[in-house]
C-alpha cells in the first residue's frame, strides 16, 4: 500500500508495509499515482499530455521514471505487500507479558478539571489513597508476572499522586530493593498537576523519576477555565512557576508538559506555542476524551479546524528549528530509523496484558481508562488475575482484528488506536474512534513531512 501526499513543497510517498519514505518530483509523483491502475503506454500517453508545456518531459524521461519505480518495487521499498497478517497472532503473543503498570496511588485530587476522565480522582468510586502495603503488592505483582523482561515501568498516577507522596517515596525505595534482588530495572514516571510541587518534591522527582508528566493546558485563560482548584480559582499562576523550577533543574532527563484541548480551545496550536514561549521544550497536547454530550466535547465538525492547527504547529516548529528555538511535540516524534519493530506495531499499546492499572485498593484493570468499570475489573493484587476471560479478549485484539485499519496508511503508526477510546465510542475494544483516526492520520503526515524536511536540509 502506498500513501502519497503533497505538503510544505514536498511530494511524499509512504510505502506503508515496508515503512519506506520517498521524496519525489512531480513526474515521479504522477507515475506512482498511476502505476497500479494503468499500463506503461497509458502512463506515457497521459503524462505527455499533462506535461505538454514542459519540453524536458519526454517519453524517455517518463519511461526512465517508470523504470525507477519498478526498481524500488523489486527492492521491496514501493508497493510492497502486507506479509504480516499471517503472523499477527504470534507477534501479539510475543508481547503479552506484563511489563508496566499505571499505579493510581491516590483516587483523590486537589484540582477540579472539568473534563477529568478520572471523575476528579474518584473514578466512579470513593476518594481513597493507596497504602504502602498495597503499593508493594502491586510492585511484587508486576515483577512476578514480568517473565524475562528486564525493563519494567511504573507510572505514579491518580488522581493526584503527590497527595500520597509518602507512599510514592517509599515505593521508589522499594523499586531499588527489587533491582538489587532481581536485577529488574523499574523505570518510574510521575504524572502530576503540580499543585503540591515544592523544593523537596522537585529534588526527589529529578533524582528518581525517569520521566515526569506535568499537566498544563496552555494559555492562562484556557488552563484556568478547565483546570480550576477545589475552591474555583485558576491553577495557572500556582503551577507554572513550579513547573519552570522543576524543568530548569531536570538536568536533561525526560519530561513532558502535557495538556488537553477541548472545543473551547480549538486553536490549540497557540497553547503549544505558549508552552514553548514559557521555555518548555518537551510538549504534548491531547484531544479531550469524554461523552459527546459534554459541552466541551470535540465533534466531527471541529475536525477541519483541528487538522489545520496540526499543520500550523508543524510549520511553526520547522521555522523555530531553523531559528535555533526548536522544541519537541510528542506526536511529531516519529523516528523513521529507530522506531519499534513490527511485533510492537501489530500488537498495539499492550492494554490488559503488557500494561495494567492498579487502584488504591489493589484492584487491577486493563488500563487507567477502564478503572472503575466493573465489567473490566481483572482481579486484585491479593488474589491475582481472576478474569482471564477479559484478558483473553485483549489477547485476541491486535491491528489485524480491526477491519477499518486494513486500508489505512497510518496503521503502523497508531497500531489500531486506543482500545479504551474505541470501547467508549462504540462499546467494542476492536473498534475504532473515527475522530481520533482523522487526527492521527494528519499528525502522521505532518511528522513524516518534518522528517523529510530535515533529511533534505541535511543533504543540502
Amino acid at each position: 500500500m502506498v500513501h502519497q501526499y503533497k505538503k510544505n513543497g514536498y511530494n511524499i510517498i509512504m510505502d506503508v508495509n515496508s515503512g519506506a519514505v520517498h521524496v519525489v518530483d512531480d513526474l515521479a509523483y504522477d507515475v506512482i499515482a498511476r502505476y497500479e491502475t494503468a499500463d506503461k503506454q497509458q502512463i506515457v500517453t497521459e503524462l505527455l499530455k499533462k506535461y505538454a508545456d514542459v519540453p524536458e518531459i519526454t517519453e524517455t524521461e517518463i519511461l526512465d521514471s517508470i523504470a525507477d519505480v519498478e526498481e524500488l518495487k523489486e527492492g521491496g521499498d514501493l508497493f510492497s505487500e502486507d506479509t504480516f497478517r499471517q503472523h499477527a497472532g504470534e507477534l501479539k503473543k510475543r508481547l503479552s507479558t506484563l511489563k508496566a503498570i499505571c499505579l493510581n496511588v491516590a483516587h483523590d485530587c486537589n484540582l477540579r478539571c472539568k473534563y477529568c476522565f478520572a471523575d476528579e480522582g474518584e473514578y466512579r468510586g470513593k476518594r481513597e489513597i493507596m497504602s504502602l502495603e498495597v503499593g508493594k503488592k502491586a510492585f511484587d505483582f508486576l515483577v512476578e508476572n514480568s517473565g524475562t523482561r528486564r525493563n519494567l515501568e511504573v507510572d505514579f498516577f491518580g488522581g493526584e499522586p503527590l497527595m500520597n507522596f509518602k507512599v510514592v517515596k517509599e515505593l521508589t525505595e522499594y523499586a531499588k530493593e527489587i533491582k538489587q534482588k532481581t536485577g529488574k530495572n523499574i523505570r518510574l514516571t510521575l504524572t502530576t498537576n503540580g499543585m503540591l510541587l515544592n523544593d523537596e518534591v522537585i529534588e526527589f522527582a529529578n533524582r528518581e523519576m525517569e520521566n515526569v508528566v506535568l499537566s498544563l493546558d496552555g494559555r492562562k485563560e484556557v488552563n484556568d477555565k478547565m483546570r480550576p482548584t477545589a475552591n474555583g480559582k485558576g491553577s495557572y499562576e500556582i503551577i507554572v512557576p513550579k513547573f519552570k523550577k522543576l524543568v530548569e533543574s531536570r538536568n536533561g532527563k525526560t519530561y513532558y508538559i502535557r495538556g488537553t484541548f477541548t472545543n473551547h480551545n480549538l486553536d490549540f496550536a497557540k497553547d503549544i506555542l505558549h508552552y514553548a514561549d514559557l521555555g518548555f521544550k518537551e510538549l504534548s497536547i491531547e484531544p479531550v476524551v469524554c461523552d459527546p454530550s459534554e459541552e466541551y466535547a470535540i465533534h466531527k465538525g471541529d475536525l477541519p479546524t483541528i487538522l489545520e492547527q496540526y499543520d500550523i504547529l508543524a510549520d511553526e516548529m520547522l521555522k523555530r528549528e531553523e531559528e535555533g528555538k526548536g522544541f519537541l511535540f510528542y506526536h511529531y516524534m516519529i523516528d523513521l530509523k529507530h522506531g519499534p519493530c513490527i511485533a510492537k506495531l501489530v500488537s498495539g499499546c499492550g492494554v490488559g496484558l503488557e500494561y495494567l492499572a492498579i487502584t488504591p485498593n489493589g484492584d487491577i484493570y486493563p488500563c487507567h481508562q477502564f478503572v472503575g468499570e466493573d465489567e473490566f475489573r481483572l482481579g486484585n493484587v491479593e488474589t491475582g488475575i481472576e478474569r482471564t476471560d477479559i484478558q483473553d479478549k485483549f489477547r485476541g485484539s491486535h491491528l489485524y482484528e480491526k477491519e477499518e485499519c486494513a486500508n489505512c496508511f497510518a496503521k503502523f503508526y497508531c497500531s489500531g488506536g486506543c482500545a479504551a477510546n474505541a470501547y467508549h465510542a462504540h462499546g467494542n475494544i476492536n473498534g475504532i474512534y473515527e475522530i481520533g483516526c482523522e487526527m492521527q492520520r494528519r499528525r502522521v503526515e505532518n511528522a513524516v513531512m518534518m522528517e523529510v524536511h530535515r533529511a533534505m536540509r541535511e543533504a543540502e
Partner: protein
Amino acid sequence: MKRIVTLTTKNLRDTLTKGGCGECQTSCQSASKTSCSVANQKCENKDNQ
C-alpha cells in the same frame, strides 16, 4: 535515481524475526494516556536496529 530520493528508514520486514523483545517503553507510560502512540517509542533491541 534522478527523480526519487529515498530516506533511510527501518524496514519493517527486517524486524519480523528478531522483534518483540518487549523492552521498549509502553506508549501510555509517556505523554499519551488518552490515545495510542506506539510508533513514537524507540526500539531498545540492539539486534533489531
